[in-house]
């Protein structure tokens, strides 16, 4: 017969955050027929008697347990993982999951430093025997392709130097592209892509400011309809506003 204390321990060990493997093993290790039966009767959170008086696992409880064990495994794996590998795996996963998850690609490409992004590209080689840009280019369709491939291929200059004149003319070019959105989608405009994917971040922040002056709105407001471009600019120019938004929480796990 299982001691009530053991049942208590088991209940605790299996619910809540993480899994207390040691306790579980020490209790279940000595299990025999009657012992198991009394555990089933005692752990009402996990077992119930169905209409045929059969003591069975609750399917939801099994699902939750699976999740708990997985979370623990993921925590172990990811905590030891090199950040470059983590980014490479995230990129691969986002690509696999499709357009709904492409924002992750934008996020990684734009919020990492130039060397961190290079590191992720190196890790991608090691993990998948391909380059990230070849996989992206081959799997992303039409409009977003140019932008996404160029974003992950960037190796932006990281110095503070900014040319105000260039920033002004580029803000104008962006405004024009947005104004002509009905003739050609801004995300497919060569100028737009070149500006956003080759210029340094300090430069782009200057472009952002200049844009405000000539448009009255911020460029993110004017790009309401263009999700990827908007996110690109947010990540590059105003990362704090980007990260305060709530994202799908369990993407990683």
């Amino acid at each position, binding site marked *: 017969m299982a001691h009530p204390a053991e049942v208590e321990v088991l209940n605790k060990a299996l619910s809540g955050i993480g899994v207390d493997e040691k306790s579980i093993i020490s209790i279940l290790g000595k299990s025999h027929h009657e012992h198991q039966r009394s555990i089933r009767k005692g752990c009402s959170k996990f077992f119930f008697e169905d209409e045929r008086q059969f003591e069975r696992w609750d399917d939801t409880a099994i699902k939750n347990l699976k999740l708990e064990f997985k979370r623990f495994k993921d925590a172990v794996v990811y905590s030891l993982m090199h950040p470059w590998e983590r980014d490479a795996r995230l990129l691969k996963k986002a690509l696999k999951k499709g357009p709904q998850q492409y924002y992750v690609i934008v996020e990684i490409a734009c919020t990492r430093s130039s060397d961190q992004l290079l590191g992720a590209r190196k890790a991608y080689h090691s993990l998948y025997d391909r380059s990230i840009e070849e996989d992206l280019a081959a799997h992303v369709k039409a409009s977003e392709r140019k932008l996404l491939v160029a974003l992950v291929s960037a190796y932006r200059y990281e110095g503070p130097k900014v040319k105000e004149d260039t920033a002004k003319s580029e803000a104008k070019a962006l405004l024009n592209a947005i104004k002509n959105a009905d003739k050609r989608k801004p995300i497919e405009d060569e100028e737009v892509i070149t500006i956003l994917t*080759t210029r340094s971040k300090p430069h782009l922040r200057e472009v952002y400011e200049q844009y405000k002056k000539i448009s009255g709105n911020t460029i993110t407001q004017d790009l309401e309809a263009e999700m990827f471009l908007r996110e690109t600019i947010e990540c590059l120019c105003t990362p704090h506003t980007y990260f305060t938004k709530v994202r799908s929480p369990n993407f990683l796990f």
Partner: protein
Amino acid sequence: MATLKVPTHVPAPSEDAEQLRKAFEGWGTNEQMIIDILAHRNAAQRNLIRKTYGQTYGEDFLTSLDKELSSDFERAVLLFTLDPAERDAYLANEATKRFPSSNWVIMEIACTRSSHELFNVRKAYHARYKKSLEEDVAHHATGDYRKLLVPLVSAFRYEGDEVNMTLAKSEAKILHDKISHKHYSDEEVIRIVTTRSKAQLNATLNHYNTAFGNAINKDLKADPKDEFLKLLRATIKCLTVPEKYFEKVLRQAINRLGTDEWALTRVVTTRAEVDMVRIKEEYQKRNSVTLEKAVAGDTSGDYERMLLALIGCGDV
């Protein structure tokens, strides 16, 4: 394989620096001394000499060089002294200012360096010019040239030998379709040429040849006057058989009226430590004369001596 000849006992960098300093002193310059030293040191050794020279004499060696020398010889020495990544960054920057005639140089650098080397070039470009290589290329190139060159310089190709034959077949077909319809700067063509690994591209092009009867560059010769097509063919050549590409550049540099020293210097100084042996073989095969003889016949003085030393002539 490199043609650069380095002596078995290399003097200390301080000694070399001292000799180089001496070479500049007094009337004129002792160019032979410069050749004797610099044309017989590898990249790491040259870096040390440059550092030591700078610390000892308070001036970058290249600045002294600029003051004392001129023209083709100086350019050859300058280019060869630079660290390979710096050199490529210098050449690329120079090329962006000479667009469109120097699209070639950008393409050449992007396609014939390894992924790792290309990345070092991009890093060196940041350090030297305070901007990114891709933004300068994008700024100076237009239209189809920009579409091709920006992805080429931004690539970080996978460097392994793995090849996916199914992919090679399907991409050969895509290339063939686009080329038959004369869509030479189509997104798909650019995608394949600028992102696939060199091994994969090779497999694709071999399959193209087998399946469609012509090598891809033959099909790309449809319009001999089209400059973009010329660049695209050269891109493919650089990615698959660079020594043949360089042989052609050298041949054209030497055979034209006068000599294209700009191209000659570039190829010799950038390949002396890489694959000049193979390039020389190609040259001899194609032209029935050794590269040394051709260079000697077409150049003179210190410039000639520098080039010959770099391509492996004479003693160490």
